[in-house]
């Protein structure tokens, strides 16, 4: 039986800001951008909230919400641009504390990490006691609040942590996992998103108990392998995808992506194409930098009405070339763009492989030439910044909207 902790910082960005400006405490605070005074009133910049304080959440504000909407919900909220260097610094402090408790920990984001505490009872005592100690140490050494979920699996630890928030510790006694999960809505199960929730609702499934009652066979028939994993999750087991790996095992990135929000929504096909070209180049650049090859390219489009689509295509062979990513992203764009104004575009590379691997017989020479050219470009970028070299198609791009809109 494993003992897993999930430690998640409470409203991390906001909590860090409060350290520097204690007057923010208790106020509705939104991190993501500063308001601008325009034509006699405060206007929110474009973009979304990176974090919201608990006071702000009471107004219905949550992270990933457009700032304009947050401003409408709570006009008196404090809007901050955010200090990512501060967040990184505090994240490192937290990681240090995690490392002092167990060598087997894995950060899943800047403010959230799994700790495998199996077999540490002699050192730290019973799990709940150890968790309380960790909670206290994080508070003392960083001044930041966090919540901790303790369970026999990562999945249940995650759910327990959500239930413990804010500033709490919740340990699930072994054997009680299914009972804890049963009354919760299915969305609480990691891996069940909006789409799956919708399909489950059509089957009459609302709670985890409903899900368990359907049975693994049926779920597998409807959802395939992910359905079988879903069923195992209802019993609190780690199943499916990332949950099949042990803590600390999956250290490599799972995907690399870049996206951009336009200053003004655009339905200009050429401009969108140019932006996709630039984003593809940025993603490919990072693939090469980290020595990865990607198998799958995903295009993300968000329309003016916030309807967001993502469409993916798997390549015949893994690649780290700008051109391959761009062609695939462009093919997806051509096939799926409905012609209306776009607010945000993104390009993501996933299915990452370390091995450069198999060379190509049919267009090998072309690829090799590209490789040499791009390596040279990367060297120039290393010295003079990403924008020093561009593929022709990306020149008209508008990743940095402010500089390009001025010319148009």
């Amino acid at each position: 039986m494993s003992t897993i902790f999930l430690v998640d910082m409470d409203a991390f960005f906001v909590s860090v800001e409060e350290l520097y400006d204690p007057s923010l405490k208790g106020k509705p605070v939104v991190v993501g951008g500063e308001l601008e005074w325009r034509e006699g009133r405060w206007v929110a910049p474009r973009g979304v909230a990176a974090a919201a304080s608990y006071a702000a959440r009471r107004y219905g504000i949550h992270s990933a919400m457009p700032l304009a909407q947050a401003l409408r919900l709570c006009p008196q909220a404090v809007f901050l641009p955010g200090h990512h260097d501060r967040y990184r610094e505090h994240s490192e402090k937290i990681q240090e504390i995690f490392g002092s408790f167990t060598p087997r920990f894995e950060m899943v984001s800047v403010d959230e990490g799994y700790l495998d505490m199996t077999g540490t009872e002699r050192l730290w005592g019973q799990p709940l006691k150890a968790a309380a100690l960790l909670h206290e140490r994080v508070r003392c050494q960083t001044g930041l609040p966090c919540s901790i979920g303790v369970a026999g699996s990562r999945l249940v630890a995650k759910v327990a942590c959500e239930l413990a928030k804010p500033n709490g510790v919740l340990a699930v006694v072994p054997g009680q996992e299914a009972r804890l999960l049963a009354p919760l809505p299915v969305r609480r199960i990691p891996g069940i998103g909006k789409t799956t929730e919708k399909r489950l609702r059509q089957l009459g499934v609302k709670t985890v108990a409903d899900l368990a009652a359907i049975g693994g066979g049926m779920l597998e028939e409807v959802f395939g392998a992910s359905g079988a994993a879903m069923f195992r999750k209802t019993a609190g087991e780690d199943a499916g995808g990332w949950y099949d790996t042990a803590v600390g095992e999956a250290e490599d990135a799972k995907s690399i992506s870049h996206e951009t929000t336009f200053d003004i929504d655009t339905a200009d096909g050429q401009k969108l194409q140019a932006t996709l070209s630039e984003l593809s180049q940025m993603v490919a650049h990072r693939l090469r930098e980290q020595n990865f090859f990607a198998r799958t390219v995903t295009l993300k489009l968000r329309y003016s009405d916030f309807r967001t689509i993502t469409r993916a295509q798997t390549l015949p062979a893994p690649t780290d070339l700008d051109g391959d990513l761009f062609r695939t992203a462009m093919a997806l764009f051509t096939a799926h763009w409905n012609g209306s104004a776009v607010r945000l575009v993104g390009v993501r590379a996933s299915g990452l492989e370390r091995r450069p691997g198999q060379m190509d017989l049919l267009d090998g020479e072309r690829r090799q030439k590209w490789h040499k050219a791009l390596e040279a470009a990367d060297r120039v970028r290393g010295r003079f910044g990403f924008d020093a070299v561009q593929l022709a198609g990306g020149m008209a791009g508008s990743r940095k909207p402010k500089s390009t809109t001025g010319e148009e």
Partner: protein
Amino acid sequence: MGTLAKSMSQMEFTVNQADLVKELGLSQGVVEKKTTIPILSNVLIEARGEAIELTSTDLEIGVRSACPAKVSAEGSVTVPAKKLLDYVRLLESGEVTVRLQENFWVQITAKRARTRMVGMSRENFPVLPQMPDVVAHLGAGMLLDMIGKVIFAVSSEESRYTLNGALLVVRPDSVIMVATDGHRLAYVEAPYQAGVSSEVRALVGKKAMGELIRLLSQQEDPNSILDFGRDESHLFFRTGGRLLISRLLSGQFPNYEAVIPKENNRVVVLDRDAVAGALRRVSQFADERSHAVKLQLATGELKVSSSSSESGESEETLEAQYEGDAVQVGFNSQYLLDFLAAMGTGPVRLEFKDEQSAGQLCPAGADAPQYRYIVMPMRI
């Protein structure tokens, strides 16, 4: 009596159990196992004259064959192909009588066994095209051998649809087959007079190739002839009363002549079994996904080695008559083993240039048909 006469007149015939099993066996690879169109799981049975014709299709390929029968009432019906074969195969040898009854019930009687199967009207069964004029006559044994030598190199990657089949080239005095998946290419050529005056090219899909193997390996006479024909959208292969129809793959097959290496001057000849054995053993410790092994050719030896962070490492050295420059190249061991299995026993010739360029393998025996295999290396 009147109703009985009417039901009798729908279709009735008697066949030999063994004959029926043999012909139904041909349909099994064609019928869709998981289809959204139920009738494609069925075989069409048509009783006419002194035979029954069996047709099955998945819309991509179709097979039609015949079987002698005593037809007492002409007619047709479709029945689930797998269920019919599974059942008929279990019957004792001897005569089997099939009778179509009302509502497409199909009655099967054999000795004391009696069964009624649920059939379907032929109305919704796709109509397959008729064999057009014969374009070329090909040796059945030769074609079977050629398909076996290239089929493993056909790509299964659906996005590369022009590589989802092999290119068949029929020339006045030779027949060529080529297949590639973009990483390796298998090429086989045999001298043959197929009766064409100018070159004929066709892309044969992988599934059709598989069915051709099934069809051709049932021919007892290795010298039998296969008639090849085509219309705008189909290829036709007919042999011994059986017809295979395949939808023509569209698209341009890559220019294979351009990838055949010309400067591979580091050459070594080794016994196939020795190389295959070493590769099989060493590859146990290759990375599980890439199957990467390293081949190092140096004076007097070829060393095969592998290593994987998960399982360990392994190497083996083969004695070789080689005096040239040392060279080392990484390959997917599975790609090499595929060829070694297909080439048959005897010496194999390995030709390399450097670690960035395609290697070439071919049988070293003089009497072998022109058979070559080109593999791109792996970076390791």
